[in-house]
């Protein structure tokens, strides 16, 4: 049997276990807070209030969530094809190159609603191209995609620095970033949606790329579970041999999956650049690609789960900022720890509590476990 674990009902598998894992991650994070000499319960309250307490907080939470939906989807698409794309970070960064070029060329000429689609295409294409080389090397030369994508993250960083201190930097400026985009390169805010519910927002970068992210989540769902291409990707992801047998070209499916993954990563660049800073600066991705790994793991690579997990992480980022303000001992790096713990407990240790849950289920309703246990024992 491929899995040493027996079957649980779907809701336990997709709801209960991730929830328990998340809870444990937070409990451990609570200990870190304790170690720092603060009260973890007060910290939690501040965090939640900061993220959801006021309209301002909600807007920021959704702004961060937008970024993480893109990167989470990017990781998940690759996972469905059995590929671990750690290169989301670099692909998003290079996606910024596409955004920069489009905005610098068009922002004075076209309104945002024309610049935006062009920038979407440009960022997606750049991200996809950056994923193409590791994909090609995996498909054709058998190089391990995890290692090559890590390498490409570093190469991306050097490449972007090269452009941002060189060709893309306005003459006379010292800062390694592009000039500010004009109105044609700025995305409209969506804060009014939250204000409809009576909240007041001073200023928050929550913008239309959130809608693009939701659209992408739906398209990814459609792709994975409703199209032939998605079927082929899943087949390859579960069993490369079965895919070969079914006449699915390994090279083609790896390259397509990675390019879709890269394109989603690249689109992430739209949110912080056109949506918030109105320029492309050095390090603007700042780890969002890696957060995507945690988001995809939490969301079990399902778009609905990813959107929820992205909002959770968005809340952590926003609430974390508030927390850093209220409790100076806890900087935003606390989020990095929580992120790590979530990856550890929801990812690497995802099966740790499963046996206990199964025992619990078996004792509560032995009948539901009967067939599953029989399957586990077929030797």
């Amino acid at each position, binding site marked *: 049997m491929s899995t040493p674990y*027996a079957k649980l009902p779907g809701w336990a598998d997709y709801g209960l276990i991730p929830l328990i894992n998340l809870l444990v991650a937070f409990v451990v994070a609570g200990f870190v807070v304790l170690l720092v000499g603060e009260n973890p319960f007060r910290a939690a309250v501040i965090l939640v209030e900061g993220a959801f307490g006021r309209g301002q907080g909600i807007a920021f939470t959704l702004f961060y969530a937008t970024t993480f939906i893109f990167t989470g989807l990017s990781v998940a698409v690759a996972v469905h094809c059995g590929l671990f794309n750690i290169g989301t970070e670099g692909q998003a960064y290079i996606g910024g190159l596409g955004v920069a070029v489009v905005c610098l060329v068009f922002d004075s000429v076209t309104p945002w609603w024309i610049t935006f689609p062009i920038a979407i295409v440009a960022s997606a294409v750049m991200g996809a191209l950056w994923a193409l080389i590791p994909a090609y090397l995996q498909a054709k030369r058998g190089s391990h995609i995890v290692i090559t994508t890590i390498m490409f993250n570093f190469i991306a960083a050097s490449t972007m620095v090269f452009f941002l201190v060189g060709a893309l930097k306005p003459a006379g400026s010292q800062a390694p970033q592009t000039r500010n985009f004009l109105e044609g390169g700025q995305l409209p805010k969506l804060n009014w949606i939250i204000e409809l519910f009576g909240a007041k927002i001073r200023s928050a970068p929550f913008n239309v790329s959130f809608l693009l992210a939701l659209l992408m989540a739906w398209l990814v769902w459609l792709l994975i579970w409703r199209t032939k291409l998605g079927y082929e990707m899943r087949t390859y992801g*579960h*069993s490369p*041999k*079965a895919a070969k*047998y079914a*006449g699915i070209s390994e090279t083609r499916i790896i390259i397509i999956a990675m390019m879709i993954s890269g394109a989603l990563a690249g689109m992430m660049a739209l949110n912080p650049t056109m949506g918030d800073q109105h320029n492309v600066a050095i390090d603007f991705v700042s780890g969002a690609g890696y957060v995507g790994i945690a988001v995809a793991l939490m969301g079990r690579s399902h778009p609905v789960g990813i959107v929820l997990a992205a909002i959770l992480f968005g809340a952590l980022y926003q609430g974390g900022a508030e927390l850093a303000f209220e409790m100076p001992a806890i900087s935003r790096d606390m989020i990095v720890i929580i992120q790590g713990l979530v990856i550890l407990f929801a990812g690497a240790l995802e099966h740790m509590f499963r046996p206990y849950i199964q025992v619990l289920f078996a004792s509560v309703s032995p009948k539901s476990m009967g067939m599953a246990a029989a399957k586990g*024992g*077929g*030797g």
Partner: protein
Amino acid sequence: MAEAAIELIGINKSFGAVQANRDINLEVARGTIHGIVGENGAGKSTLMSILYGFYQADSGEIRVNGKPATIKTSNDAITAGIGMVHQHFMLVDNFTVLENVILGAESNALLKSSIAKARSELIRLEREYGLQVNPDALIEELPVGLQQRVEILKALYRGAEILILDEPTGVLTPAEADHLFRILGQLKEQGKTIVLITHKLREIMAITDSVSVMRQGTIVATRETKKTTVEELAELMVGRRVLLRVEKDAMQAEGVKLSVKNLTVKDLRGVTMVDDVSFDVRAGEIVGIAGVAGNGQSELLEAISGIRKAVSGSVTLDGKPIDLTGAADPGELRERGLAHVPEDRHHVGLVLAFEENENSILGYQDDEQYLKGPFLNIDAIQKDARDKIEKYDIRPANCRLKTANFSGGNQQKIVLAREIEQDPGVLIVGQPTRGVDVGAIEFIHKRLIAMRDAGKAVLLVSVELDEIRSLSDRILVMFAGRIVGERGSDTTEGELGLLMAGVEHKEAAE
């Protein structure tokens, strides 16, 4: 009867709800060879794994040389003087023979003295039992028969008095198997006790002193080999009289559907696996390919079905050539009416994590009837799957169930239903009944005969000689990548055995 080397008393072992071993009592006399026979899944391997400390029994007692033994780990078994030769060799491929022999039995923390000691010990064992092997050769460079010899040496080096061999001849040619049996005979003469697990009754009759038959987790009978017959053992194994021949009408073969000419296939290392093979399969006949596993049958099937590239030669389907450079993908061949039931249904023929209905289109995902533009036509796929479930009596009858939750026989039926219902002109089938329960075997055999009677060309590869002989109209024997002989379905098992061993055509014909 001599004193017992091993006594198993009341052994029980369950995995979840499945009881793999039920109340097993077994006694093996010292200095004898004891056979344990049974079908796949009868619990033989589990029982021996308990004896070797790989699993622990839920209840029961193990006695070694009359004394109760607690065997919780492999280490306990080794200490108790038990050695095991596993079906899949437990060797480190890029280590030398010596390194493999001392692994886990080093005399101290440094290797130098261990290696020196092992070297002289190997020379002694070689002299005593005729177990020649170059101690400095790398395992990956040794042929399978010699690798197995290293496994035996490993056990003897650890001072094993009791040797368990799990299906040792599955990968051997009959000649290599004979050599193994001679070695086992010598070991027995030196007073070692040997337990031989197999499902090949011929081996049991040839070499053992006594034999136990296992069925569904229990020992149903223990016999002295001299006083039993193959027929009796076979009946005990399956629990009822087996019909070794499948009822079928005379063949009415017509034109050539599939033609293979001078086909040569190499593996990744460049070793020739299929060597200049030529044959035809006509409409309305089943051509069986017999041979010991690993003689190129798998590669032959893969090359014909487009999974593996060929080096040279040609294959034509309905008179039109198949591109052997790998450009003809399996999907294209399916469209041209070539269906393939692969040997490995777990990793190749099915995606176990998929729902049943998703597997029912595997390989046919390009078929218009399952698609709406780029989208899957979920309703059509599920309806189609439900139809096949009914027609092939696949249980449980739920097309939304994960495929991993079906039994081996039902999984095989899912594959067969998918391939046969496409109404292909040519069906190639690898090991159709491996790991399949007896009831499903009969069903599957009848389906294959029905294909033939419907005027299809069927190419069957199986390592089960009985299956080959009862289904095939013509039998080709493969040895070392070549087809070494062709026989009719009336040939004897002995004759096929000689061919499978690579004995030259003329000798075999005499």
